[in-house]
């Protein structure tokens, strides 16, 4: 039988220069009674093989909408306006529903926010993972092979095999999230989308889960998209990161580079307002104002009403997400004026 085993998953050849997922000019709206919410507007980024990419932003910035768009799991009032989502060169938006269903879990899996709600409380966890295997390997795996495979999956995320026969309520929060990760790994996907995978967990458990995900990513040559509101989590686990604000990608680049030299005023202010337990106890700067209403987003740059660097041009014209060197992209007319973060913090 030549389906999959956890051993096969490891050692998948990874070429970090090769794009796995390319998102091009994605525009997605939600239709509600009051009008159209432009939840995702012109978002473009690329995930390479074996790469961990982070999307960070505040609630309502569109980061979860991007994740759901990639999987085509949007609610019925959502509408793709334009753009492409290419996985290994194939546009997922062109697939029929059935074709897409066949690729979910197998090529792209998702780890959802809030592990309790990811499980059906009346079925054993093992049976729910088995369902994924039943769907994607119908008739290709015997019952014993399925069981063996699931035991290996549980071992891979550090859970004892007998937990497969337990119900979700018998798991602690951290164990439940491990089981969700095991399920995501069931078909050995190339890409996992992890939407706030550790948000409801305590720090020590969060740390364990993030380490586990990182290890799996490297051992199995997988790519991961992390979605989080917590910029510190993004700093820990990602290679590249994008910052979203009001449905727009406003900055994208190598994680170390973005943290060292944030060039969008929003990223800069976000970093300045993030408290840390290390380093000198520095002055935190609050970000004035509130995020805009996406039913009627501001003209020009969507951040301009809150931006300390805004000029008239910002209210009139929308800045493009332009490369400022080394793959670091920023959507700001005045990015050169954004001061050096280190200097500002030491001040």
């Amino acid at each position, binding site marked *: 039988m030549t389906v999959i085993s956890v051993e096969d998953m490891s050692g998948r050849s990874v070429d970090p220069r090769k794009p796995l997922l390319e998102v091009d000019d994605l525009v997605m709206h939600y239709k509600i009674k009051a009008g159209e919410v432009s939840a995702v507007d012109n978002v473009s980024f690329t995930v390479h093989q074996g790469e961990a990419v982070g999307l960070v932003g*505040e609630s309502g910035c569109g980061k979860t909408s991007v994740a759901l768009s990639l999987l085509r799991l949007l609610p019925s009032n959502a509408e793709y306006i334009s753009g492409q989502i290419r996985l290994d060169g194939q546009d997922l938006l062109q697939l029929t529903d059935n074709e897409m269903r066949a690729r979910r879990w197998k090529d792209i899996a998702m780890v959802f926010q809030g592990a309790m709600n990811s499980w059906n409380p009346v079925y054993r966890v093992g049976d729910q993972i088995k369902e994924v295997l039943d769907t994607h390997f119908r008739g290709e795996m015997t019952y014993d092979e399925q069981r063996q495979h699931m035991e290996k999956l549980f071992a891979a995320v550090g859970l004892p095999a007998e937990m497969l026969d337990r119900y979700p309520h018998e798991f602690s929060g951290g164990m439940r999230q491990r089981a969700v990760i095991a399920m995501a790994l069931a078909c050995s996907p190339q890409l996992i989308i992890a939407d706030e995978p550790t948000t409801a967990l305590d720090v020590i458990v969060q740390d364990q889960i993030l380490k586990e995900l990182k290890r799996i990513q490297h051992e199995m040559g997988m790519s991961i998209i992390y979605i989080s509101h917590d*910029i510190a989590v993004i700093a820990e686990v990602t290679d590249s990161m994008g910052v979203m604000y009001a449905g727009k990608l406003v900055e994208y680049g190598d994680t170390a580079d973005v*943290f060292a030299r944030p060039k969008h005023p929003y990223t800069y202010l*976000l970093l300045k307002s993030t*408290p840390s337990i*290390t380093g000198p106890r520095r002055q935190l700067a609050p*970000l004035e104002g509130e995020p805009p209403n996406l039913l009627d987003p501001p003209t020009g740059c969507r951040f301009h009403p809150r931006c300390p660097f805004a000029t008239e041009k910002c209210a009139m014209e929308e800045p493009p997400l332009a490369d400022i060197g080394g793959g670091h992209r920023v959507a700001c007319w005045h990015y050169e004026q954004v001061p050096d973060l280190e200097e500002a913090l030491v001040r």
Partner: protein
Amino acid sequence: MTVTPAPTVTKPLLEVRDLRKKFPISRGMFRAPTEFVHAVDGISFEIAPGESLGLVGESGCGKSTTGRMLVKLTEPTDGQIVFRDGDYERDVAHVTRSELKDFRSRVQMIFQDPYESMNPRRTIFDTVSEPLAVQKVGTVPEREARVLELLRLVGLTPPENFLFRYPHELSGGQRQRVAIARALVMNPTFVVADEPTSMLDVSIRISIMELMTRLARELQVSYLYITHDLAVARYMCDRIAVMYLGKIVEIGPTEDVLARPRHPYTKALLSAVPVPDPSYKRTPVEIKGGISKAINPPPECRFIARCPFAADVCRNNPHPPLEEHGPNHQVACYRVDEIS
């Protein structure tokens, strides 16, 4: 806002002695419970006037139960909470029903969830002025003036525009400002804040934190600041107490605890906090397993099952007492000197 407690000069605002709370686990209607969750298991600490103490720990460690007991929302099973405010001195556990009103004008609470802690059918004016109405303070126009003053103080300007709005018309950050206004309307000396910023976005979180710090200074309010987020505690508190399964395992000045943690649990907790700096290299502290529930806990150290340094001394003795290890810095661990 650094106030070092000086018990010889001024008496502490709050003195907690051996406080306990047990919750019975129900075994059916007619059977007496045999098992108890020891949510808070004999903790003692003091808060000086104007000082803010941070109570940190993971979920289920008893930090919220402690906070609720201090404001008399939960009755302690045992122990003493002495609260002093000028000439007023009471053991919180023995505040009677008739004294409760007076007590509540001095001690207030801010809750975590600004969406749940407000009545959706009442206007902001109703919500903020309710303590005044309950305490029968002032006439309606006077109350309105006081509410306007408070709303301005918490940064809801112009306050007239907010008076007759409903909670659903406000954002999360604005609601939390209303909750702060409600807590401060009676001019309390002590406020328990239970995770007041954990539901808010980063950019809004900082402005609420700044607001609370500024008000503490201007109005001479002390906080017990309950949080799971050590980075937030660093900015809000003069001292930090770390709780684990109903016990305080370490307490000391904030910067001292963060820079030089002594208890193995504090070390593990700090090493697990993500740092917003990709170049930062952490020193991992490995601890075993996850947090359990404090159901009829064995007498030994609560942390023994997960502690990488557990030795015979820990197994053969009861839970270690909090002892001085450095200026104002207390640790509950038998092996503290060997492991640091």
